[in-house]
């Protein structure tokens, strides 16, 4: 059992928790993820590590309340326990040789992008961060990004805060103005990562994307997280849990990944509604 040390609402749909898991805290690097089960009968869900405190032995997770499981997780309070918490899984984000980096985060993906930005900042790289949200009330982690970025651009889709528009807009301007990043790292919705990749392509800047497909074990056993890379014209199957979650954006078959991500759409919507009703009843 793993204790919830602290819990904080970042916005009405996104929650941050710090979980006591010393073995994971000691090892986790930016870009890696954990898998948790809320209770004995629970489903296993992957969440990317949003930070660690090795001294305290805690791991920070940030999640969006989207389905039944994240709803159950959000119903847990400080001092309570979650059943299982395993990791760190996946390969950490590569930082070697990158002196000038652009981090592009979208929505709750910013929670995963943040520790990556912090790591580059710690390593002395020049960090540009572009973070985008649907609207002002969904904004998270602005102060944290400001603290670790040499340059920060905040975007909202509806213009309710900061600059109006998609994250690709300032990215394109920077690339056109001659900014030469060693790497663009993008984390967020698949459709956003696809368009960040397409935006960068004419400028020949490498793009790393962080994939977050459906997973069960997270250790390379089930194959549910498979995705297709198109490498030299050939289709190659990779597993996000052991080969990723970071991949070369130019190789990922985003359309297939988006389709696979909707496999259990109906099931999840029903489960989400049931969990809503259940939690409403309990209150």
């Amino acid at each position: 059992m793993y204790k919830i040390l602290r819990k904080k609402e970042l916005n009405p749909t996104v929650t941050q928790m710090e979980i006591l898991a010393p073995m994971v805290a000691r090892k986790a690097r930016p870009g890696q993820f954990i898998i948790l089960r809320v209770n004995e009968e629970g489903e296993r869900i992957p969440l990317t590590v949003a930070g660690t405190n090795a001294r305290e032995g805690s791991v920070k997770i940030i999640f969006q309340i989207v389905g039944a499981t994240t709803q159950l997780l959000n119903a847990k309070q400080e001092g309570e326990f979650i059943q299982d918490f395993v990791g760190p899984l996946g390969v950490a984000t590569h930082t070697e040789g990158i002196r000038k980096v652009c981090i592009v985060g979208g929505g709750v993906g910013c929670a995963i992008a943040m520790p990556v930005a912090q790591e580059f900042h710690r390593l002395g790289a020049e960090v540009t961060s572009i973070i985008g949200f649907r609207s002002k009330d969904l904004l998270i982690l602005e102060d944290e990004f400001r603290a670790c970025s040499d340059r920060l651009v905040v975007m909202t889709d509806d213009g309710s805060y900061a600059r109006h528009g998609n994250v690709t807009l300032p990215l394109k301007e920077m690339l056109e103005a001659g900014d030469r990043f060693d790497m663009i790292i993008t984390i967020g919705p698949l459709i956003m990562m696809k368009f960040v990749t397409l935006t960068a392509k004419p400028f020949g800047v490498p793009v790393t994307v962080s994939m977050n497909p459906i997973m069960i074990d997270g250790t390379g056993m089930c194959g549910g997280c498979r995705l297709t890379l198109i490498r030299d014209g050939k289709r190659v199957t990779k597993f996000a849990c052991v080969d990723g979650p970071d991949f070369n954006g130019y190789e990922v078959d985003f359309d297939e990944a988006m389709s696979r991500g909707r496999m259990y759409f109906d099931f999840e919507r029903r489960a989400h509604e049931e969990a809503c009703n259940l939690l409403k009843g309990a209150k």
Partner: protein
Amino acid sequence: MALNPKKHEMPSQAPEVRAHNFSEVALGYTAEIAVAEAQRCLNCKNRPCVAGCPVNIAIPDFIGKMKTGDFEGAYQIISQSSALPAVCGRVCPQESQCESKCTLGVKFEPVGIGRLERFAADWHNEHSTEAPRLPEQNGHKVAVVGAGPSGLTCAGDLARKGYKVSIFEALHTAGGVLVYGIPEFRLPKAIVAKEVEGLKALGVDVETNVVIGKTLTIDELFEDGYEAVFVGSGAGLPNFMNIPGESYKGVYSANEFLTRSNLMKAYRDDPVTPIMKGGKVAVVGGGNVAMDAARTALRLGAEHVYIVYRRSMEELPARKEEVEHAIEEGIDFRLLQNPVEVLGYNNPENPRDPKNGFVTGLRCIRMELGEPDAKGRRRPVPIPGSEFVLDVDTVIIAIGTSPNPLIKSTTKGLEVNSHGGIIVNEDGLTSREGVYAGGDAVTGAATVISAMGAGKVAAKGIDEYLMGKQQVNK
């Protein structure tokens, strides 16, 4: 009394009933049948059955106890050699092991050794209240990676010799393939849990949620004071066929399909982990895993389930009893057929059509058997122009696995073969001092009992290694 030429039949649920539930298919002998079956053993002098058992259970001795109704005595003899008797009695391919060597089998059906083993183990689990005698501790610490059949066996053997053993398991439940892979109707999970409890009673620690290679490395285990490590991390990445359409929604690896149903309990009415239920299902492959996936799909409510296998019934590698059960339950065997493409729905008019990307069929080609390959198995050859489409909604691929890369990639000096399997010598020792390995992590996908045999060999190797070191140090 005249010798009964046939094994006593195993009481089982009727096929038409069991095809719709997840309860165990075979119900087990009664005490009366067990004694009668034991009487068939000739107690012959050269005991060929013992050599046929990968863990060398003293088979005629335990059967001898059963003849007199001393079932606990029989269990005690089995448990000297096997850490998981109730499991082996259910999942071992006895027809190609102990029973294939039975002297009685020359003229008649062999003794039902597996069924007797199962009875003795179940009898013990139901009746014995005796706490196991805790072995005297020898002060040595050993780590076991993976709580599957090889790891549990290795841990059990070492614990009985007085070692302090800790098992590290990546998943949230101990048992490995016994819990995520083999379905409830073939091996009830309560039986696995009971066997794990038995090990804990011997002083074995089981730490779940620890991924060796990630949470901790093998080198860190040595730093933590473990003097030897056994790696039984099992098979890893599922193999796919590399044919077009394998990414359509509704294509599963057997590992994923079975894990969803078994470990995550997706077979229940109110699952929290989803699985595709109903419709028509094609399972590709002919091993035990393929049989398990097909029969699970049927129980989940599939209208029709095919097994698509590229060779003929004769080459089908699954355990004979499982194939018979599958046929009785109505699984449709499509032999000498091989998939060439998974077909999916694509509405060119509407890219947002919710049906887009779901499986609609499996294109296959008919095969014939050609010349024998290096292993002596006749190679299947496609018959040109014989392609056809099976109308299915779900495709489950059960064509084996490749070893998991996590441990190899984080352990310096651990040598692997071209397939990624860890290389070991006849004592189970790897290329690293003090590191032993066995089971699917070494051989690639194989059987529960062969993994147990490897766990046993390694336990002996570890014992000799550490006792030898102790001698030198004295």
